[in-house]
Structures are given as structure tokens and as C-alpha cells.
């Protein structure tokens, strides 16, 4: 028992942040769409597509071809990879938005299709580019940032020892998301669209356009989340490497009540639970039970924080402008 409890020390903090970062980035993306009333199941697929293109981009801009023609690009390769990831993921988001918001495909079905598309598409392309279906190296990574002045500070030092730059970006993104949602015109519109699309429409807001915009934002953020996996944390792409993190992000976002701060806390909580499970494995407990920890912990936490809300509305379809009611 002591052995198990000894897991809880400051050494958990670094892994907690590392494990939370990709989830957090995707979850923030999900909360934008959620705030606009769009349930985004496609986070997983967008992340995966991003992870792939991040690695492809980084690889390509370091290739001899590029080095000979524009050598200065080589040093920027990881960043260009990040850019590729964001572009690819946003394009996929646009497809998702187009089919679900514009063409009226069911949000969940379209999301599942996007995930399938990404899972298959990345492998097909990997085979095309690298003649392998397993994994390939990006030949580089985004830089880690070590806040050296914190090195001697007890807890913070542990927290920010060797963290990828995307972690710092994600902190900024949480703050920005908070500001955007609660302090900007766009945020006001997003929230009104999510809460009462009909009212928003009569106020002259283009409901679908707002929803589409949030889907694109979720694409950008999933781009960062995917790049974080393949280019921030590892420096390689592996088939289906997101491993359900998009769904965890969806859960974190729901858990966090679709607010940036809540979602950040939920993601951190999930990171912590994951970190505990990782460290408990070295304590010789049956692996399957240890692997359950993050999920069980999430359920317990959710039950503890949930108020009794029996009638909540969700899975809201895109707005129907013309309702067939002849009520004068």
C-alpha cells in the first residue's frame, strides 16, 4: 500500500502535463463547436490527420530536395510541419462542416465517417509517400522549452522540466479561448447560436456560418493537438497513433462543462489519472486494472461534480430555418 501511495509525488506533474496537452488542445477545439451547438465526434480523425501531416511536413522540409533549393527552410522544418498539420486538419474540419452543417448529414455519422476517412487516408498516403504502413520518422521535433530559472523551484521546476513548446502554446490557447468566448463579438455570437439558434438567427446572425467557423477552429486546434503527438512529443508518425485521445478530449470537454477553464481542469485531471496509471505499472499491479484508472477516475469525478440535470439538451442538429408549423 505504501508502495502504491509513494506514486504520488511531484514526479507525477511532468507526465501529467505531457499527457494532458494533446487532450487539452483537442478538447478546446471541441468546446468551441459545443458552444455553437455542434457535437464534434470528428476530433479524433482531425487529430490523426494532423499528426500525419505534421510528420510529413517536417520530413519534407528537411529533405535533400528542399535543402538544395531553399536551405533556410530546413531549420524551420518542424514549424512548417506544424503548419501542414494545421492546414490538413482544418481542411478535414471543413469537409466535416460542409457535410454536417451545410448538407445536413447527421453530426455523429459525419464525425464517424471523418474518423474512418482519417484512419484509412493516413495509411494510404503513408504507403504512397514512404512505402510503409507502420510508422515513419519526422526526422526532427518541435523544441522543448526548459524554463531554467524555475529549475530549483520545488514544484514548478518539476512541472516545467522539459516540456514541449506546444504545452506553453496550449496554456495561451486556454486563455485566448476564454477571452474569445466571453469577451469578443464572435464569442457572444457563438454562445447565442449554441443556446438558441432561432433567436440568434432572428438577430441577423448567420447561424450556420458561425457553426462552420467553430468547426474550422476545432480543426486548427486539433492540428496543434495532432502535431503535438507526432512532432512535439515523439518525432514520428505511427498508424492510428491518436489511440482514442480525440474521444477522451470530447469527454474532457463535456466534463469541463464546455468552458475553457473547466475543460483545462478536466484535461489536467485526465492527465493526472493517466500519469498515475503509468507510474503504478512499475509497482507491479495487474496491468489491466491499472490501465482502467484514468477512465474510472473520470467517471467518479464526473459523478461528484455533476449536478442533477436530467433534461439537458445536446446532440443538437443544425438549425432548421423553416419549421413546418402553421401556427399563426
Amino acid at each position, binding site marked *: 500500500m505504501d508502495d502504491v501511495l509513494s506514486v504520488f509525488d511531484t514526479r507525477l506533474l511532468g507526465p501529467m502535463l505531457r499527457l494532458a496537452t494533446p487532450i487539452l488542445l483537442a478538447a478546446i477545439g471541441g468546446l468551441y463547436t459545443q458552444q455553437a451547438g455542434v457535437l464534434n465526434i470528428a476530433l479524433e480523425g482531425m487529430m490523426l490527420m494532423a499528426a500525419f501531416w505534421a510528420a510529413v511536413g517536417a520530413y519534407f522540409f528537411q529533405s535533400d530536395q528542399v535543402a538544395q533549393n531553399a536551405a533556410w527552410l530546413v531549420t524551420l522544418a518542424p514549424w512548417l510541419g506544424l503548419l501542414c498539420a494545421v492546414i490538413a486538419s482544418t481542411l478535414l474540419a471543413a469537409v466535416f462542416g460542409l457535410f454536417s452543417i451545410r448538407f445536413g448529414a447527421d453530426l455523429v455519422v459525419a464525425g464517424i465517417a471523418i474518423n474512418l476517412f482519417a484512419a484509412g487516408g493516413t495509411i494510404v498516403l503513408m504507403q504512397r509517400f514512404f512505402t510503409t504502413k507502420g510508422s515513419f520518422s519526422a526526422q526532427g521535433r518541435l523544441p522543448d522549452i526548459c524554463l531554467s530559472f524555475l529549475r530549483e523551484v520545488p514544484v514548478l521546476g518539476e512541472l516545467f522540466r522539459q516540456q514541449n513548446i506546444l504545452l506553453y502554446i496550449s496554456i495561451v490557447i486556454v486563455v485566448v479561448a476564454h477571452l474569445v468566448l466571453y*469577451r*469578443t463579438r464572435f464569442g457572444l455570437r457563438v454562445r447565442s447560436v449554441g443556446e438558441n439558434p432561432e433567436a440568434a438567427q432572428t438577430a*441577423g446572425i448567420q447561424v450556420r456560418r458561425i457553426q462552420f467557423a467553430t468547426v474550422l477552429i476545432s480543426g486548427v486546434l486539433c492540428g496543434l493537438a495532432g502535431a503535438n503527438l507526432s512532432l512535439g512529443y515523439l518525432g514520428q508518425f505511427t498508424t492510428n497513433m491518436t489511440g482514442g485521445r480525440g474521444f477522451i478530449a470530447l469527454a474532457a470537454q463535456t466534463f469541463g462543462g464546455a468552458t475553457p477553464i473547466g475543460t483545462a481542469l478536466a484535461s489536467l485531471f485526465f492527465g493526472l489519472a493517466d500519469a498515475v496509471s503509468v507510474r503504478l505499472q512499475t509497482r507491479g499491479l495487474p496491468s489491466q486494472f491499472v490501465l482502467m484508472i484514468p477512465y474510472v477516475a473520470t467517471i467518479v469525478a464526473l459523478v461528484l461534480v455533476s449536478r442533477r440535470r436530467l433534461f439537458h439538451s445536446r446532440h443538437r442538429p443544425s438549425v432548421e430555418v423553416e419549421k413546418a408549423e402553421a401556427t*399563426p
Partner: protein
Amino acid sequence: MRMEEQHGADVAPVVVMRGITKEFPGVIANQDARFDLREGEVHALVGENGAGKSTLMKILFGLYTPDAGSITVGGSIVRIESPQTAIDLGIGMVHQHFMLIPSLTVAENISLGMEQKRGPFYDLDAAIEHARQLSTTYGLRVDPSARIRDISVGERQRVEILKALGRGVRVLILDEPTAVLTPQEADELFHVLWGLVRQGMSIVLITHKLREVMNNSDRVTVMRAGQYVGTVDTAATSTEELARMMVGRDILLRVEKGAAQPGAVVLQAVSVTTDDDQGLPAVRGVSFEVRAGEIYGIAGVEGNGQSELLEALTGLRKTSGGSILLNGVHIERASARRRRELGMAHIPEDRLVYGSSESSSIADNAVIGYHYHPPLARRFWLATSRRARWALDLIRRFDIRGARPEAPIGSLSGGNIQKLILAREMSREPTLLVAAQPTRGVDIGAIEFFHRKLIEYRDAGAAILLVSAELSEVLALADRIGVMFDGRIVAEFAGEEATEQELGLAMLGVGDARRASA
């Protein structure tokens, strides 16, 4: 009169609608309808439920696209594709169901869609300032920083009007604006509207209330069954004539009723207390009783605990104290189903939220509460054919037009939905009928019908608890009246003795409490 007409002929109409036709699956909402609006007039648009008034105005506001017909605004033919186009043309609309975002503040709601920025951010201060300015300019009192979900219905309506005014509209359409207001609030609203007209605004008033029309409009357009019937000057017509135009026959506007013959106590509430959704006390110890063969009316300004009291009585809300007896049985902890089994029926105040399920069929809607009982079901099995016959029977007996049992109830007009609810609740001959706002948003023909049914039912020996924001309705129907203020019944009147004046004062909490309850 002559002057008026001359004047009318001179003023160019701001809006002309001609030949408007709009068809929904299975329903023709408008057929070759027409409408003219002159500058600086209050133009009432009246008609029964399903007459197509709202549809016509929603077309003008760009919510629906007409299948045929033309719209001229300010002399030129326009295509109004969205509310934004309508607003750009200077047309605003205040909907019957408010188009507000509950979690946002008044100022945010008013500025929504035309927000000002300061740097990258939304300029909340400017929005508040703008709202305050509008509020003073037009004399519509609201607190710009209050959240919509925290303010009263009357205030919400003011926000809706300010929202339109803030967009610089010159034509304002109001869909049943007084349906949710107290008489005082309604008077205030018309005061404001006339002020707007003096500033050159043109107003379309969709309503059922003929008295309102007579007092507060320049001209009246009557519609029936999706078609245009005629337009008359208000000064040259009468309620009777308008009623005849709407319904196509003479109707009785007063309620004929004999004296009540009260019997045994059916419902007894003793010091009932309950909390609202935020957990604050909403009903603070209410006691009263309703006897068989009488109508007990509860009057009061909305938001004084009536809704919570009804929910507590009908089992939709937990009581925090006191007891409720139905035919001598304690029911304060009983489920809604148990209360129904003990003889309670309930016409809920919000027919769309509680009273019906929009996407479900009329048959499904017609049986709820009794769906598990013979003859509608045998053990676990629904008696499908009997159910359809049951629904047809209700449709026939309550004259619900255009209804087929298998059609979704959402295809019916509001008044017909309300009729179905009344039919359903009366069908099992309960000993107690709790009726909340039974005629809200219902047209004049139907009101007559509803009132007659309630009286008939009382005379058959049922106990009726009536809660209505329409003072005239409570006065016309109730044998005894309790006035609720701040979660308590502050006064009780015998129906025939009460006057609108006295009740109004009691509703404001300043009346002479004649028989205040414990």
C-alpha cells in the same frame, strides 16, 4: 371619419403584400393573402388560430419564403430572404415566443448581431450604454446588466422591442404581445407603442383580443383560414363585427353561468411551501381549498409563485413543507401518475413544454397520463385501434380542425393543440381539473368554447382550480378568487363581489386583504 380616410389615402403605404401563398406539407397557411401597412399607424391583424396571421408576418420578416406573391416595401418590390434582409429594410418583429438568449444580459441581447468592438474585444460598455440610451429614449425600463433568465416576462418583452428599435426599424410587428402581460403591463405597453407611432413608426399588432384592438389600433385586417377577409377602420367597426368577420358567424362574448353549487372539499392545500429552480423559496405557505362544483381562481402577476404552486400540486415539483389532500388523501409525496389516478387532471401553463410533444403524433399526445389504462391499454399492450378511435373521438368532440390521429401534433395551430390538451384532460372525467392559463394565445372563438366547457364541467360537479394571468378571465369564470403575491395568497374574494380594481391592487400587494389566509 372622413378625415381619417382622406389622410389614409394620402399616406403612401410602407408595406404592401399581395397574393401571398405559403404551403406547408399538408397545410396551406396562406392563400392569396394581402396586407397594407401605412406609415404611422397601429394596424391590428386579427383572426382565429390557424388563420395565417403569424405566417404572413413571418414571411414579411424573412423567416419563411412565400411560394407565390409579392412584397413591396417603401415603393419597391423586394425579396426578403432572411431576417437580416428584413431588418435592413427597416422591419422588426417581436415574436410570441421570445427570441432571446437566456444566459446573456439585456445589453448583450440587444446588441447581438450588431455588436460594437473595442480593439479585438466586444465592447460591453458601449452595449450597456446603447441599451440604456434606447431604454430612456423610448421609455422602456430595463436593467441593461440583468441576465434575461432573471427578469420578468414583461421586461423580456421590452428587451425584444428595444432589440428591434436598436436596429433602427420603422416597421414593428408584434405577435400577441399582451398574451403574457398583466393588465397594467399591457396598458404600459400600449402607452409605449403609441409613443413610437408618434415618432413615425408603423406597428403591426397580431392579437386575439378584440377589446385591445378596439382601444389600440387605427385599422384592422381580418384573416380567416389563410385568406384575407377585409380591412376596416377601427373607429368604424365594433367587436361584434370583427368577431363575425373572424369566425364567420355571430359569437357570444360574455360567459353565461349560473351560481355555483359547491359540494364536498376536493382539493385542500395546507401551508404548502416549495422552492424555485434556483432553490429559493417560491411558495411560502399557501392554504386554500377547492370544492366540488366550484371554480377557484388564482390571480396574480406572473412570477409570484403561481407556477411553482401548480407544479407542487400536480407532482412536478417537490414540496418543502405543508400538505396537499385530494379527496381526503394525502398526495404531497405522490407521483404525478398517482395524483392522476386519484382524479386530478392538469392543463399545464406551457402547452409546448409540458402539455404536448411536438414531434409525436396526435394520438400519442391524446393519451398521455392514461396510456396504460384500459381501454387504451391492456396490461403492457397498447390498444392501437382503440387509441386511434379515442383520438378521433376527442378530435370530433372538441372540434379540432385539420387533425388526423397519426399526424404530428406540431402540425396543428396553438389553439388546436390547446383544445386537444383540454379534451385529453377532461376525457377521463377527473374530480379536480387544474387549469393554468387555459386560453393563453387562443383565439376568440376557442375562448368561448373553452369557457363554456369549463362551466359545463363545473356544473357537472367537478372541482376546478383556475390560474390565469387574464384578470377578465378569472373574473368571468371563478366562483372564488385567491390573489397570490410573493408566494402567498394575500386575499380571497367571492367571484361576484370582486372588481378588477380591487384585484389589481391585491395583486400588487397593497390591497385590503379581505380574508387573508394563514
